[in-house]
């Protein structure tokens, strides 16, 4: 298909759409501005939380549970209290009356079980790493030393590790109420009709392994008080949400509590949390009247920063022989860990609306059961529910393509929403406002050299080359820009999705912008400056962006879910519009004209048809003096705006990759990776590209490298960076990135958000490529992370006899010949450690896949 493609024409179209989407008069928006944030970061003048030193500051160290599940029978802190430099030692009992319970703000069902979650364990521990005591000392070494002198006796209880076993009758219980937190259901269309007599049914089970977000900056907390008010510095993504939640948890009145997120070294969802250490930091400073600091070690972090993913996904697709999808059914087990933290139960639910991906279908059915285990709780991690959904549908689409002998791109083409069909309301009830899957895919195919690689793949298969080539496809969309408050309310989320900004002209003509977003690497100071520079017609360098301190930014919903630009950036723009309205009124007054006759361009308000005008800076100074203002005009050029979107935004894209798989060693090598993303209009292409790069790397990391491993007793085996492998530069290739641009229609900038796209798209692209490479061996799945050992074992398990030959292995025009050699999905597919397709669940009417169906491809599809 791609040989008919005119790459030049596409590039031209893209360039054209670039121009179209740029607002008229835009000089800064769209420009690859270098970041304002960089100066302090490249010279080491940053304020990380751990850098903060206050007079008389004390250091906190936590003693953490070595047991996954145990009753605490005795804690003796007396010896520790006598150690040099020790100021105080506390156990959970000491805080029992005041520590409250860490909040869960997303009770997804009415009957959800939300167990009490004391910041410091009092009677029982439920995961390794849970805090059981702490030392407060004059320096960090002395605090750590004294931990050794605390004695704790435990009465071991059974660990609960595996979700399926946890739900079985007779399983040991994590909480008295049992191991099920909730079951959440969602459906659209007649799913039974879709599956009844469906010519093809794909039924697969995928394991989303547990991940550790691993922001480079470990968490840190500094808490201080003047006896009446409290200040908490924390390495957090959510100073505003945190303030509300901490006030509710600790009883410190909200107006007496200031929360500051100083420079924050990455988050990826892991700092979207209300943590035990934040609550305890406040309680300790309240008791001692001294500033206290806690900084986690990486090992503490691996144990106790909330984890991500950990789901068991059963997905079934019913389709016709033409490949058209009739329905998708999803049955999900989601590991909550030991407790429900801030948005733990909501994470898999966010994915519920995305298993249909970019495809049209008649019916959809989704069930998710949240399960308690004796592990660290899970919660938001880059993508939060949507990478899981995208992985499952994109993996399953490749399986369907294979069953039908269709090229995976062709299958997607037959099913996706075409660009003429937007806005399109999906089977999940979301209205995708805009998109062009054809354009992004065509561009990606051209950049990858798809057909040439398919030819090479066929050649390697013919030669039975021990190094096979696989091509991975991932076409995705995501719902982001969280979010319309009304929709969040309908999903039982505890907060809204609006964002706030205020913009003020200073007397000298400079501009201060306050934003409720809380950047930690995203470059908001730069991007918001670009938006303001265009809106007010002021120089980029004359704009400062303030954020991350509840005393400065009194109102906000913070940064996560690719929402900052799509919601917060629009609030900035709207505040600018209000400032301009005010300035227009003043200009009219000063120029002795009607406001209707005043036009604004490039920072100057002019009387239409004359040269008579006032710059916005002149107007700002005039309001400072306030000597001659219109009646009832409030001195000052400033305004607040709060934006609550009507819809989510839906970035999309096509990611393709080519991977060489050495079948003798299991080693995989990414030969090329192409990402064509459509994130709508772009404020700063440099920042967008950076976000895509980082996202791709993080998605690849899940596919190839990372897994948080617990043993059968609930001990974590991946407590250091030597065990939990985040990729280094030598593990990754260069990425080829490009964009198509279909502006969002849901906001005036046409932007869609870019923070999570790369992570959502890349994981299935990688695994699809590896499986594609191994098709001739009868392989239908490799469990993530696809380490060399796991790939090698999969090949070995498939066995030499499983070689099914190039004719069948390819996705391109397979025929029914050679059926006898085929290793059906029941044998080779889904050989996961946990999932057993066909045996899970109680659906006696389940239409299982059969080997015969899989190879009866229709001829002439291409």
């Amino acid at each position, binding site marked *: 298909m791609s040989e008919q493609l005119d790459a030049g024409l596409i590039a031209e179209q893209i360039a054209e759409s670039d121009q179209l989407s740029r607002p008229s008069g835009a000089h800064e928006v769209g420009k690859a501005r*270098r*970041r304002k*944030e*960089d*100066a*302090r*970061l*490249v*010279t*080491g*003048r*940053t304020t*990380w939380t*751990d*850098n903060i*030193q206050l007079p008389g500051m004390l250091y906190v160290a936590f003693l953490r549970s070595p047991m996954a599940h145990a009753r605490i029978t005795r804690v003796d802190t007396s010896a520790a209290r006598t150690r040099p430099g020790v100021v105080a030692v506390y156990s959970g009992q000491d805080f029992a009356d005041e520590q409250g319970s860490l909040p869960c703000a997303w009770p997804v069902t009415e009957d959800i079980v939300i167990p009490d979650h004391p910041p410091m364990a009092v009677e029982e521990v439920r995961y390794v790493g849970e805090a059981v005591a702490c030392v407060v000392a004059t*320096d*960090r*070494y002395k605090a750590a030393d004294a931990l050794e002198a605390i004695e704790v006796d435990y009465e071991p209880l059974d660990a609960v590790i595996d979700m399926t076993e946890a739900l079985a009758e007779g399983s040991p219980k994590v909480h008295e109420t049992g191991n099920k937190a909730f079951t959440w259901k969602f459906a659209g269309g007649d799913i039974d009709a879709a599956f009844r007599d469906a010519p093809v049914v794909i039924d697969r089970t995928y394991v989303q392994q547990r991940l550790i977000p*691993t*922001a*480079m*900056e*470990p968490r840190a907390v500094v808490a201080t008080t003047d006896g009446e008010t409290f200040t908490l510095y924390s390495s957090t993504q959510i100073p505003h949400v945190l303030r509300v939640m901490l006030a509710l948890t600790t009883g410190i009145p909200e107006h007496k509590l200031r929360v500051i997120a100083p*420079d*924050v*070294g*990455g988050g*990826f969802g892991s700092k979207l949390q209300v943590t035990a250490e934040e609550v305890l930091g406040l309680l300790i400073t309240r008791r001692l009247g001294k500033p206290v600091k806690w900084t986690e*070690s*990486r*090992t503490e972090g691996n144990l106790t920063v909330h984890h991500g993913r950990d789901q068991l996904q059963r997905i079934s697709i019913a389709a016709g022989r033409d490949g058209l999808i009739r329905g998708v059914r999803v049955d999900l087990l989601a590991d909550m860990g030991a407790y429900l933290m801030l948005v733990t139960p909501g994470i898999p639910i966010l994915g519920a609306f995305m298993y249909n991906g970019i495809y049209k279908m008649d019916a959809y059915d989704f069930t998710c059961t949240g399960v308690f285990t004796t592990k660290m709780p899970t919660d938001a991690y880059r993508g939060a529910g949507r990478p899981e959904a995208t992985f499952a549908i994109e993996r399953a689409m490749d399986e369907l393509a294979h069953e039908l002998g269709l090229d995976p791109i062709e299958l997607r083409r037959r099913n996706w929403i075409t660009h003429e069909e937007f806005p399109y309301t999906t089977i999940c009830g979301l209205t995708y406002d805009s998109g062009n899957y054809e354009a992004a895919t065509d561009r990606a195919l051209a950049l990858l050299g798809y057909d040439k690689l398919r030819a090479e793949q066929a050649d390697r298969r013919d030669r039975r080359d021990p190094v096979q080539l696989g091509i991975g496809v991932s076409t995705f969309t995501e719902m982001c820009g969280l979010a319309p408050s009304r929709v969040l309310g309908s999903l039982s989320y505890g907060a809204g999705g609006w964002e706030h900004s205020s913009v003020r002209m200073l007397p000298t003509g400079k501009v201060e912008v306050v934003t409720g977003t809380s950047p*930690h*690497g*995203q*470059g908001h100071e730069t991007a918001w400056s670009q938006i303001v520079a265009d809106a007010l017609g002021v120089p980029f360098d004359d704009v400062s962006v303030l954020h991350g301190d509840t005393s400065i930014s009194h109102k906000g919903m913070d940064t996560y879910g690719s929402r900052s630009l799509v919601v917060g950036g629009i609030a900035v723009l709207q505040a600018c519009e209000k400032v301009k309205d005010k300035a227009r009124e003043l200009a009219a007054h000063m120029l002795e004209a009607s406001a209707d006759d005043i036009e604004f361009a490039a920072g100057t308000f002019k009387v239409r048809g004359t040269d008579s005008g006032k710059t916005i800076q002149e107007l700002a100074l005039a309001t400072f003096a306030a000597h001659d203002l219109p009646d009832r005009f409030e001195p000052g050029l400033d305004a607040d705006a709060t934006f609550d979107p009507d819809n989510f935004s839906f970035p999309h894209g096509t990611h393709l990759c080519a991977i060489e798989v050495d079948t003798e060693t299991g080693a995989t090598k990414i030969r090329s990776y192409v990402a064509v993303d459509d994130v709508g209009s772009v404020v700063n292409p*440099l*920042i967008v*590209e*950076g*976000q895509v*790069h*980082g*996202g*791709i*790397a*993080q998605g690849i990391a899940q596919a190839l490298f990372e897994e948080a491993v617990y043993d059968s007793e609930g001990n974590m085996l991946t407590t*250091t*960076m*030597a065990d939990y492998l*985040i990729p*280094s*530069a*030598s593990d*990754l290739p*260069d*990425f080829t990135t490009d964009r198509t641009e279909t502006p969002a229609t849901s906001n005036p900038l046409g932007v869609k958000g870019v923070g999570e796209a*790369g992570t959502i798209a890349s994981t299935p692209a990688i695994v699809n490529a590896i499986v594609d490479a191994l098709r001739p061996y009868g392989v239908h799945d490799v469990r993530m992370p696809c380490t060399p050992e796991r790939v090698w074992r999969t090949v070995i398990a498939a066995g030499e006899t499983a070689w099914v030959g190039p004719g069948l292995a390819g996705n391109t025009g397979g025929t029914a010949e050679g059926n006898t050699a085929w290793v059906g999905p029941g044998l080779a597919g889904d050989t996961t450690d946990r999932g057993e397709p066909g045996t899970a669940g109680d659906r006696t009417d389940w239409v299982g896949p059969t080997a015969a169906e899989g190879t009866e491809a229709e001829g002439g599809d291409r």
Partner: protein
Amino acid sequence: MPRITVTVDGITYQEDVEPRLLLVHLLRDRLGKTGTPIGCDTGNCGACTVMLDGMSVKSCSVLAVQADGNDVVTIEGLAHGNEWHPMQKAFHEEHALQCGYCTPGMIMAAIDLLRDDPDPSEETVREGLEGNLCRCTGYCNIVRAVRRGAREMSQRSMPEQAEQTEREVRTP
């Protein structure tokens, strides 16, 4: 308690230190050199990389007493006044940082890498920075920045080299 003398970014300090005190804690907690951050405890992430007598070390894996009598350069000592080091400029120009937490260590490691290879290939840079982890950038722009910084550093040192070559030519 041992007394050590160490020069950090051009200033000489005499400090009494516990033998177990890590160099990175001396820098951060005692000398206020917080430009060098800590990302792990196992020497894996490289965020704390500094120069010790001209060679890059991970300061979480060096004891303060081991730096006795030595010269330490941190990210804070790279710029000359307001003139950034070419590698600092290159990281800015190529958008090679997002949250910036790995950046100090990454820049120090990159400069060290160029001692062995002043004009490294992409592959050399990727392998040379294996001990420095970044979670934000996917490394593409870091690799570009290091190569850009290398070019700018070699251009800057070219006049000196030319001078040297001239001298060598004259010597016989």
